[in-house]
């Protein structure tokens, strides 16, 4: 392996001399992280800081009769022992609902449980001490008297009349329900030559970020300000929430996000224990730190998926799909998560099923129910892995049913590449996608025909390999349609502020955040290109609500497409301002000048006129020499939000090649491919690595990851010994290709790429397993994770 040097990729029309768009520029902040000089919240230490630990409910559902804190208060190092009722005097509860999810309901949730614990792991009491170890010692001395209540754990029976209602005031255990009926579904099925029905099960899993959730809250009563160091994806969102529930103004709250040890949607929500830490700081008037340990992560970080989808597809003999129908049921724990709600994933499943295909007949129902398990909410690729696995699972089952090659069946039904703009059966608006070009490229990359021949050859020798495909669409660059219209104070716009410093370097302050995906690098590339300086001269600052433009942060694959466009526009604006100053100094026409590689030049010849350092020197230190009345402005801000399209849909297709050991049920992943179209590719290496990482997360869901609960709501495997994650040894090499269909909505044309890998991987791995087992007469495996046991059961061996 030789690592290629950064060079133009040819992937972008903006990829030209003096441009960094389309180039694999290394990220500037990596050196720090590689030398152990990162600054994660786990590393933050402040004067007077104390540490919190929580007593957590061992029961899935229990009334809290009494909490005895006397012994804990006497324990060495203890500063305070605070119950939910005591903390409720400082912080108000919240309800995780949004108005655009019609009918969604939830109950008030407290920072620390008051009267009742609703899942195993919910905090019932906090202990604050001089060290975390002392706080944990004292937690063991807190005595809680519980009255154990019946736990509702099975979504299938959650709505039955005999099932207890978790929040009686809500009337039933239904959080949210959505139905959709497009085209004429009954007619579609009547016209089909074959109808395939299937039930897909998606296990609960979770994010397992390397760095657990961490927060340091510092209420300074002398300033009446709360400073929160938090590993979050959305600092302005959490600023609003801390202010709202602690009776503060937003301007009194500063959220600082430095290095974050992985997010993936886990850190885009507000958690009860994080709210509790802010409240404890206000109560104790000093900094309070909390870093979840791994057991707490498993029982309190949002879980994801947990869907049961019964589904049908109708198909004609020639491969034309005539109808889709799904019924989705998902359990989300006892509360809809704040502030984004736990209704979004099911809503996305309804939106996305059938999305790549032209079939106009589609009926869907999704029901979201409460249960006494940990809360569930949006995690990387929200809804996409479910919708893609259901759609693509049905497509390959249908192909097998009518004896058609699955790639050929897709070609018959995918939107044509010249069919745009188009609107899907579910009402999704597509500006421009490239399903066919992507599929063609993928099949060429993997040499599909040769692989099929190899598969057949090996099968004759008793080696069982499978090939699975999955076409998909991905929601990126969300407009206000996602949250703003529903009343959530989560910004869809984002901004970038640029400042030329006194030496000709540029500071870029952006509202998006760096979670390791490379947002800061992408922003620097945009600024360096549109302003015209070497990238080394751009310093990017993110993650500080006191110092960056108001913005949404990083989620739904928005940082590059939205934050990047704002930075691009800001660069252009600063260039105009600097050229105005240079023109004034040079007594030239600003339109005849340009900035290239940090030097003001004649636009037509490229002749160097003056360095930016010299422009800055004159403007900052010798303004007396400028013409009267001319005031240079070397600080500019530009904002961007998509307005023309609710979302910038991307598309792609993945393939998995794997081998199943039919004696042990073990699955060996041999190779994985993905062709993705995220529009303009700003940094090809960063895009590829987002996709690779996303694919492996999807593979984890397909084969390994499962939060196992017993019927009493006890999490059985909440630690890294028992919960399997993908490690290097089991993962394949992953080949990535691109098709480029820029969005015309922005000048850059970039769409998002952060979730494409996770969206498609479970579907194509599942399809590959079933492709391997089908000739053996095995029943299709449609339950994830696909464990060796499930493989052997499908083969009738256990």
């Amino acid at each position, binding site marked *: *392996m030789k690592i290629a040097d950064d060079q133009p990729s040819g992937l972008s029309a903006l990829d030209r001399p003096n441009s960094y768009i389309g180039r694999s520029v290394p990220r500037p902040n990596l050196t720090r992280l590689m*030398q152990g000089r990162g600054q994660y919240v786990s590393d933050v230490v402040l004067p007077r800081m104390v540490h919190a630990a929580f007593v957590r409910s061992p029961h899935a559902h229990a009334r809290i009769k009494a909490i005895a804190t006397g012994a804990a208060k006497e324990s060495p190092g203890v500063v305070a022992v605070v119950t939910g009722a005591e903390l409720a005097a400082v912080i108000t509860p919240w309800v995780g609902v949004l108005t655009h999810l019609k009918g969604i309901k939830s109950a008030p949730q407290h920072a620390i449980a008051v009267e009742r614990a609703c899942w195993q792991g919910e905090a019932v009491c906090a202990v604050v001490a001089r060290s975390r170890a002392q706080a944990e010692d004292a937690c063991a001395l807190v005595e809680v008297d519980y009255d154990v209540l019946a736990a509702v754990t099975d979504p299938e029976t959650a709505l039955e009349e005999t099932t207890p209602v978790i929040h009686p005031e809500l009337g039933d255990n239904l959080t949210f329900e959505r139905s959709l009926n497009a085209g004429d579904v009954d007619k579609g099925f009547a016209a089909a030559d074959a109808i395939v029905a299937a039930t897909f099960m998606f296990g609960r899993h979770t994010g397992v970020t390397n760095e657990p959730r961490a927060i340091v809250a510092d209420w300074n009563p002398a300033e009446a300000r709360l400073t929160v160091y938090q590993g979050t994806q959305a600092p302005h969102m959490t600023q609003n929430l801390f202010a709202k529930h602690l009776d503060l103004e937003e301007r009194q709250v500063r959220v600082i996000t430095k290095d974050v040890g992985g997010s993936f949607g886990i850190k885009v929500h507000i958690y009860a224990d994080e709210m509790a830490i802010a409240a404890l700081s206000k109560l104790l008037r000093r900094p309070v730190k909390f870093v979840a340990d791994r057991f707490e992560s498993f029982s309190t970080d949002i879980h994801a998926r947990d869907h049961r989808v019964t589904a049908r597809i109708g198909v004609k003999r020639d491969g034309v799909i005539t109808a889709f129908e799904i019924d989705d049921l998902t359990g989300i724990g006892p509360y809809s998560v704040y502030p984004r709600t736990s209704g979004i994933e099911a809503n996305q499943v309804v939106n996305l099923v059938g999305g790549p295909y032209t079939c106009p007949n589609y009926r869907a129902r999704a029901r979201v129910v409460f249960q006494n398990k940990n809360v569930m909410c949006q995690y990387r690729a929200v809804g996409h892995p479910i919708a893609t696995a259901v759609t693509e699972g049905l497509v390959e089952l249908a192909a097998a049913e009518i004896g058609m090659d699955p790639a050929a069946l897709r070609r018959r039904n995918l939107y044509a590449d010249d069919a745009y703009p188009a609107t899907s059966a579910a009402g999704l608006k597509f500006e421009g996608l490239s399903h066919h070009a992507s599929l063609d490229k993928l099949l060429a990359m993997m040499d599909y025909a040769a692989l099929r021949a190899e598969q057949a050859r090996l099968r004759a020798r008793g080696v069982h390999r499978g090939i699975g495909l999955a076409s998909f669409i991905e929601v990126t660059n969300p407009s206000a349609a996602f949250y703003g219209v529903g009343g959530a104070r989560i910004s869809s716009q984002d901004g970038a502020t640029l400042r030329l410093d006194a030496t000709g370097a540029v500071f870029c302050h952006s509202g998006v955040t760096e979670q390791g995906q490379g947002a800061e690098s992408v922003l620097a590339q945009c600024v360096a290109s549109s302003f015209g300086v070497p990238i080394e001269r751009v310093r990017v600052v993110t993650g500080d609500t006191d110092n960056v433009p108001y913005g949404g942060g990083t989620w739904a694959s928005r940082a590059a497409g939205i934050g990047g466009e704002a930075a691009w526009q800001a660069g252009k604006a600063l260039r105009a301002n600097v050229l105005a100053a240079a023109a004034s100094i040079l007594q030239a026409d600003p339109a005849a000048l340009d900035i290239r590689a940090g030097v003001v030049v004649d636009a037509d010849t490229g002749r160097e006129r003056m360095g930016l350092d010299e422009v800055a020197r004159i403007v900052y230190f010798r303004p007396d020499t400028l013409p009267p009345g001319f005031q240079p402005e070397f600080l500019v801000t530009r904002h961007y939000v998509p307005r023309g399209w609710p979302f910038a849909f991307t598309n792609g297709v993945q393939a998995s090649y794997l081998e199943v050991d039919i004696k042990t049920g073990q699955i060996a992943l041999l190779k994985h491919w993905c062709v993705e179209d995220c529009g303009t590719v700003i940094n090809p290496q960063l895009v590829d690595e987002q996709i690779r990482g996303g694919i492996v997360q999807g593979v984890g869901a397909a084969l390994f990851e499962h939060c196992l609960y017993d019927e009493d709501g006890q999490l059985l495997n909440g630690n*890294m010994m028992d919960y399997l994650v993908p*490690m290097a040894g089991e*993962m394949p*090499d992953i080949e990535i290709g691109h098709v480029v269909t820029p969005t015309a909505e922005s000048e850059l044309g970039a769409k998002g790429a952060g979730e494409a890998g996770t969206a498609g991987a479970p579907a194509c791995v599942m399809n590959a397993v079933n492709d391997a087992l089908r000739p053996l007469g095995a029943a299709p495996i449609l339950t994830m994770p696909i464990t060796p046991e499930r493989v052997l059961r499908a083969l009738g061996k256990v």
Partner: protein
Amino acid sequence: MPGRAVEIRLRVNGEAVHERVDARRTLVDFLREELGLTGTHIGCEQGVCGSCTVLVDDAVVRGCLMLAVQCDGARVDTIEGISDSGAIADLQDAFARRNALQCGFCTPGMLIGAQDLLRRREIPSRDAIREHLSGNYCRCTGYHAIVDAVESVAQKRAGRI
């Protein structure tokens, strides 16, 4: 409950350290909280994720599975010392150019694990690299880029590219 404090003497990144520590204190807590060496991270406290990987007398060790008192008389090297010495500069360069890290939380442990492999074998196969790093959990990269980076350094050190 806190146990008795024990006096230990060790060398950390070449510097003499003489401290009293709780007997129950793990090595990683000792490094992070007593010595301020926060480059060694805590991920699972069960020895699974590898974020707390350090060297103790040149052996790769999980800092969460060893007590500080067990390091009395030992030589401990962390990512800070190994970086400053330049011993893995080529590996770090390859990781940066290949974007073999994203959030960076696993990276100190990953680098120490990779260096351990590169000292043992001339040019490991990609499978051998994957196998050797299978005790280091990375959620971001999907591992492919890490394997590329380690492979490229192995080839470079062997003078093959």
